[in-house]
């Protein structure tokens, strides 16, 4: 029965295997932990995430980076072509591990001050969510992609509901669960249609079949039909209009540390899923999904930026801003295949999207980290009012927030500007001038609510009985490094832009 069974090459999946092993181990270690602070659990989790990132980078440097003279891309497939390892995947996987690590470091004090959240399970579920993201990023098969997605969204859903005495969190978890199930249903329906049209669940094979259908001028109705559902499911997961309803409630209702986990790293995994399915799998249909993505992008930028103005809660405001930013990021993906597209211009458009996403995640990490640091036992610090006069209470934190807000708003010389500029360049190059004008207009609208936060911090008087800010040295250092990194990339974007371009060029 197993005469022709070969053990698959396990090295490309080393980070995933290590992560799963350690998640089990941490579960056991946590069983014996007596102290309510769970110091050992947290340290092991940090070490696991850091080592996973290192493993990913090591494999990338050792196997994926070296190139033969006339080799454009180097891709390693394993597990019967269900697992793909390329530089794009390695880059995103390392970033995901680091983003989750940073999120957990920021959340630690927040969790210690809230007794109703079980800390051991929190760490383990966060690790499972990370595993789900890694699986999604390196999926080359609809089955593994879907399993990774479920692993991610179910663990995040459980994390949201973990604070049981919090009614808002329970409601948020319920919404996340139901709408996530709906999105999964859409995605699966689209996948089944594509399977029906191409006869394969393997993404590279689907691409091959779609190309063949295109060349032989076969009718692609079924494929496009599946694509519609696929894009709808992806839009749900990414949270762009009109599939955005869950986002503000989940961001607002979840405990801030969980919001940080939902808001940062999964966006990278969602981008990877989008690139794998649309660019890797169905690039032949790019003319079809291009117009869908443009519509989604325009709607998200419009609604996101306008509704964010009306928000008084900073988590809710950031949720609407996330919707707007995801719309902007989609513009880059959509403008890849334009009128005069060569391999070079397509890659440049995707580089812009990738750069946009990475910098957005970096800034989001720091902003939510700051909200976490300002909160205390029994006080969430998530209203705009709580930031009143922050510059008088802590000039350094206010300066950090200033950098982050300016960069999200896209003010020149901050990283958001560079990212927006790169995306707009791609849009203009693809010939969709009206879309570029629209994007600039909505960004201007969006600048208002970011600048309002700065106004509140610097020009309003601090609340008399606001308690002092207490944060450990490590937290402060990490937050400062994170924010300064955002500022530094804004001034010297070439390095990160170059890295994004390089990994994309070596993957497709």
């Amino acid at each position, binding site marked *: *029965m*197993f005469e022709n*069974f070969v053990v*698959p090459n396990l090295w490309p*999946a080393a980070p995933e295997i290590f992560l*799963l092993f350690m*998640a*089990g181990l941490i*579960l056991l270690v946590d069983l014996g932990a007596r102290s309510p602070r769970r110091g050992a659990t947290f340290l092991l989790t940090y070490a696991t995430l850091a080592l996973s990132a290192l493993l990913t980078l090591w494999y990338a440097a050792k196997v994926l980076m070296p190139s033969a003279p006339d080799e454009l891309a180097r891709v390693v497939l394993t*597990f*019967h072509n*269900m*697992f793909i390892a390329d530089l794009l995947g390695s880059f995103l996987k390392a970033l995901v591990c680091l983003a989750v690590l940073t999120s957990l470091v920021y959340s630690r004090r927040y969790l210690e001050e809230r007794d109703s959240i*079980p800390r051991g*399970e929190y760490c*383990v*579920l966060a690790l*499972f969510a990370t*595993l789900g993201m890694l*699986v999604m990023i390196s999926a080359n*098969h609809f*089955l*593994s992609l879907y*399993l*990774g997605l*479920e*692993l991610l969204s*179910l*663990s995040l*859903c*459980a994390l949201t*509901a*973990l604070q*049981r005495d919090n009614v808002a969190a329970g409601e948020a978890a319920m919404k996340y669960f139901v709408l996530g199930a709906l999105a999964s249903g859409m995605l699966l329906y689209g996948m089944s249609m594509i399977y029906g049209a191409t006869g394969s669940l393997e993404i590279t094979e689907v691409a091959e079949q779609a190309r063949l259908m295109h060349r032989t001028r076969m*009718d692609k*109705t*079924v494929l496009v*039909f599946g694509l519609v559902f696929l894009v709808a499911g992806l839009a749900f997961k990414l949270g762009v209009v009109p599939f955005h309803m869950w986002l503000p409630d989940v961001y607002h209702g979840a405990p801030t540390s969980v919001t940080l986990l939902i808001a940062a790293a999964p966006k990278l995994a969602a981008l990877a899923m989008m690139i794998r399915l649309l660019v890797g799998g169905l690039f032949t249909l790019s003319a079809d999904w291009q117009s869908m993505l443009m519509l989604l992008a325009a709607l998200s930028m419009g609604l996101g930026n306008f509704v964010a103005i009306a928000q008084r809660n900073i988590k809710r405001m950031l949720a609407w801003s996330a919707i707007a930013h995801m719309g902007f990021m989609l513009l880059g993906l959509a403008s890849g295949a334009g009128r005069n597209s060569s391999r070079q211009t397509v890659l440049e458009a995707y580089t812009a999207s990738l750069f946009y996403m990475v910098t957005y995640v970096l800034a989001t990490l720091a902003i939510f980290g700051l909200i976490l640091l300002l909160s205390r036992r029994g006080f969430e610090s998530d209203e705009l009012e709580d930031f009143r006069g922050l510059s008088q209470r802590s000039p350094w934190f206010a300066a950090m927030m200033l950098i982050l807000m300016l960069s999200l708003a896209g003010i020149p010389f901050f990283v958001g500007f560079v990212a927006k500029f790169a995306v707009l360049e791609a849009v203009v190059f693809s010939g969709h001038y009206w879309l570029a004008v629209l994007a600039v207009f909505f960004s201007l609208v969006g600048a208002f609510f970011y600048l309002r936060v700065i106004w509140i911090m610097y020009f309003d008087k601090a609340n008399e009985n606001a308690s002092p800010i207490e944060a450990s040295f490590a937290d402060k250092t990490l937050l400062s490094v994170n924010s300064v990194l955002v500022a530094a990339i804004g001034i010297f974007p070439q390095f990160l832009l170059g890295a994004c371009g390089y990994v994309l060029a070596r993957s497709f």
Partner: protein
Amino acid sequence: MDFKTLLFFFFSAILLFAALRVITAKNPVHAVLNLILAFFTAACVWLLLEAEFLALVLVMVYIGAVMVLFLFVVMMLDIDLDRLRQGFWRYLPLGVFVGLVVALEMALVLGGEYFYAPDASLPATAADVSNTRELGALLVSRYVYPFELTAALLLMAIVAAVALAFRDRKPARRVDPAEQIRVRAADRLRLVHMPVETDAPAEDATAPDAQPKE
């Protein structure tokens, strides 16, 4: 139309009816029972496709374990039907409209001349090929990666379920003999040093409610 096709349509009709009743039944217990019927007929359809193992698993796992558990849960919960039905008529027109539009659009695409099912006759298999054995071999060889991922997913579900449902028990009022034996006098009896009370100064004792002197 041969007998097998007739059976297929018979089972499909029951399946569709049961599935419809799952969402329309007023009583949640009836809905669950209809779901069991739907699963059972689906297993019958799978049998027609010669997938005996899957049919067996569907009956054993879904009906035997999952649905029975589910039935228990539904019976234990006191579901307020009137609250569930609140706003049903208000949302019905919009829901029906959207559903009809989606169904119509899908029908237009799927009913087109390009949408056809490829010839899907079953490949003839030798009588000595075991369905179960082949499935098992595929699961641990070709599909080992998704198989392991499913295991991770289930482990995560267990962790999440325990974290969400487990409550630390309140200290129960029970007697621990070992602790009773180990007790020492110092645990039960506390000697408190109290100085002997002397007579208070005369002016305070005579006028307890006197005004404080200037």
